[in-house]
């Protein structure tokens, strides 16, 4: 039996099949291999990869779920394959973008030339929820703000890639990218070499190189730690995983103390100086002295040490102003302003509710648009016009009118699809791509990224908290 029998690419851009139903060139070897696999054998291999996830405890906690339930991140064993040329294009576009965003953040926290030149209205920055005016004039180590960026890429019906959003605070999911590869290598060994799949396992060492690069202490081997909110956080598995892969300590707020503007960790042998903190805690919670007073997750006095230049943070404080969904609208202009280049990767067309004409358009077309809150992530705070109920649409209408600065709208992009195992058959499911861009001495991006897949039929929401799963992403050498 052919696993792909009866597969219908539909009207969408399909990553494996061309519009005429033929297999795309770069997928032919993979398709051959899967086509000839006995379905029972395929299922056994799929089960073995799932067992691997379960036994490793590769799970995530669901937000807004009081029981703190752990779930296994659903994994689809059919990889998404990308030819070398496509990846080169993405790599260039993402590099351009992270360089521009960092120049933008430096400017916003120093001279604000881009505001003075009127490229972005000042109002948008000053009203941005994650803008931290108290850090204006502070120089950050190595002048880097966003060290790790997870930019979400989608592909429209014409096959064109777009940037959907930038995640420049605490982008999550890199551990799944690495573990997906491990699981697939166990399930389908042999095929990787034949197809010329580029490895991804340098991610932890790239990350560690970056952390070393930004250390304020140059003369010695810097002490780096990963600061986690704790084991109830949805990404706790990832925090442990990355810390272990890098061979650094994973710490909680209570493990760190600040003495005379230096940060130390409490060890069984007393205090040990810390130079670099890869933090996975929001700005608001990181230091109760400066931000939320009641936070027990953070470290009192940390911001003083940071301002004094005695400790580096990745990502820096205040980067959220760059991944605000309203500022997203301006990123193509930001690229042109600082680099004098045309953006390599376009944005999805976006309407700002705070602009009068756009607002009129948005309110008139709610059932056709996707509306997003400026500062939410993970698929929360979002309206999918075409599938929303009348009541939901009216609720959003009121919210938008009440707080236009906080909303943007975009046309629905019918994301590309990839063949996915769905309860006994292979069917097309919508996917996106989250590459992880590391900005240290150089910009490094492991080939591919995390391909997220909306497992529910026809759904366009790929977030793990909303019924999404993931796939391994294969970038080919040629």
């Amino acid at each position, binding site marked *: 039996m052919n696993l792909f029998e009866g597969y219908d690419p539909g009207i969408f851009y399909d990553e494996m099949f061309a519009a005429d139903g033929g297999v795309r060139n770069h997928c032919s070897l993979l398709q051959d291999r899967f086509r000839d696999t006995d379905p029972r054998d395929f299922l056994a291999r799929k089960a073995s990869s799932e067992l691997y996830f379960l036994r490793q405890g590769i799970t995530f906690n669901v937000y807004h779920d009081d029981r703190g339930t752990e779930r296994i991140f659903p994994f689809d064993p059919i990889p998404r394959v990308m030819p070398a040329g496509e990846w080169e294009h993405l790599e260039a576009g993402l590099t351009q973008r992270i360089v521009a965003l960092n120049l933008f953040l430096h400017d916003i926290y120093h001279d604000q030339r881009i505001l003075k030149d009127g490229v972005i209205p000042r109002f948008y920055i000053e009203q941005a929820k994650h803008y931290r005016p108290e850090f204006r004039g502070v120089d950050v180590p190595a002048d880097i703000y966003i060290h790790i960026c997870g930019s979400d890429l989608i592909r429209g019906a014409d096959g064109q890639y777009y940037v959907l959003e930038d995640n420049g605070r605490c982008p999550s999911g890199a551990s799944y990218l690495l573990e997906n590869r491990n699981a697939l290598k166990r399930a389908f060994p042999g095929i990787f070499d034949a197809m010329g799949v580029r490895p991804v396992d340098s991610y932890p060492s790239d990350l560690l190189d970056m952390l070393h690069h930004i250390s304020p202490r140059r003369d010695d081997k810097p002490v780096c730690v990963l600061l986690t*909110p704790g084991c109830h956080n949805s990404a706790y598995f990832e925090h442990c995983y990355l810390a272990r892969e890098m061979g650094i300590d994973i710490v909680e707020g209570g493990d760190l103390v600040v003495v005379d503007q230096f940060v130390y960790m409490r060890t069984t042998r007393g205090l040990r100086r810390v130079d670099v903190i890869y933090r996975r805690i929001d700005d608001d919670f990181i230091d109760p002295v400066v931000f939320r007073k009641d936070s027990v997750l953070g470290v009192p006095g940390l911001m003083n040490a940071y301002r004094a230049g005695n400790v580096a943070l990745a990502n820096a404080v205040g980067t959220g102003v760059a991944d605000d969904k309203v500022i997203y609208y301006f990123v193509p202009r930001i690229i042109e302003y600082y680099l004098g280049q045309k953006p390599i990767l376009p944005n999805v067309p976006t309407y700002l509710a705070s602009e009068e004409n756009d607002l009129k358009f948005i309110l008139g077309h709610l059932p056709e648009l996707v509306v997003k809150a400026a500062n939410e992530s993970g698929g929360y705070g979002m309206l999918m016009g075409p599938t929303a109920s009348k009541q939901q649409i009216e609720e959003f209408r009121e919210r938008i009118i009440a707080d236009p600065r906080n909303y943007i709208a975009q046309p629905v992009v019918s994301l590309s699809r990839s063949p996915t195992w769905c309860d006994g058959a292979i069917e097309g499911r919508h996917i996106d791509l989250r590459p992880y861009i590391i900005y240290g001495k150089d910009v490094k991006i492991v080939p591919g990224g995390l391909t997220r897949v909306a497992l529910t039929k026809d759904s366009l929401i790929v977030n793990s908290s909303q019924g999404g799963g993931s796939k391994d992403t294969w970038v080919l050498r040629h």
Partner: protein
Amino acid sequence: MLSRVANTLYWMVRYVERADNLARLIDVNQQLLLDSESLDSERLRGFWQPIILSTGDEEAFHSIYDQAGSSEVIRYLTDDPRNPNSITSCIALARENARTVRDQLSDELWEELNALYLFTRSREAENLVASDPPRYYERVRRSAVTFLGIAASTTSRDEAWDFMDLGRYLERADKTTRFLDVASYLPSGEDDAAVVSSDHLHWSAILRSCGALGAFRAVERQISAKGVVDFLVFSPHFPRSVHYCVERIDVSLHRISGTPRGTFSNKVERETGRLLADLAFGSVDEAFGAGLHECLDALQQRFNAIGEAVFESYVLMPDRIQANAVPEPRSSSALAMWQMQQQQQQ
């Protein structure tokens, strides 16, 4: 090593050891009852009540259950989620601790504990508790010793290991005294004068629960109260005797601090050294002279003091760190909420 990590490893192993010991305690009592078929329900209760008393949980137990029959006690100690010291609770806590120091553990070690956790949550486990408890307890014990075996063969002999060993032997010493204490609570036989039942069956059951029957027979022919107490408290060689466990605790503590044995550099080493001397030079006659129950109770208090002193010396460190007033979270669930709220842009 981070103080919190040391503390977490210590508790992870303590909880596994606790689950293992509980499984032994219940299983042996059950088998003991098989030998005494003629018991009426009144006498039967007399056998389960001591188990609850020896664990020190009688108040909590009676707030949930009216009487201490076999099914209530088994339920309470095995998989009652309301009992924070039930076997399933201990395993869940051990795994929760392991999860927070996952980066310190070998994959195999984590997998074993995670597999045990998944087992205790499974339908299979539920059925076994109801229909074939001995197999359930055997499964728990086997997994617990596998866990310790994997730990022994995949953990570097550094501080992590020392703190894990500390947790294991402190818990084990405590549980051995509790096994012995069961005897103090057993209904006395015909000669009411004896506080401790001389019933041969009880003492061999206690030996069996410590896996010590064979080792005991190798050095002693007759099973007697004094002989068993002497063996399980004062033997320098048997790995579940209090003396042996305290010896190991002393070794671990001195490895951690680097202080030569026989000397001390902090409170916990001093307390342990003193206890070790009492065990090395004490005798079973003195123990019975002072009253077995009182003697065991005093040992348990000294273990608690050692546990607290470890925490003070290596985790709290009041002398070395200026108090940094950290606001207390209103509750652990509030803390969990905050941890969850931290956006991980997924």
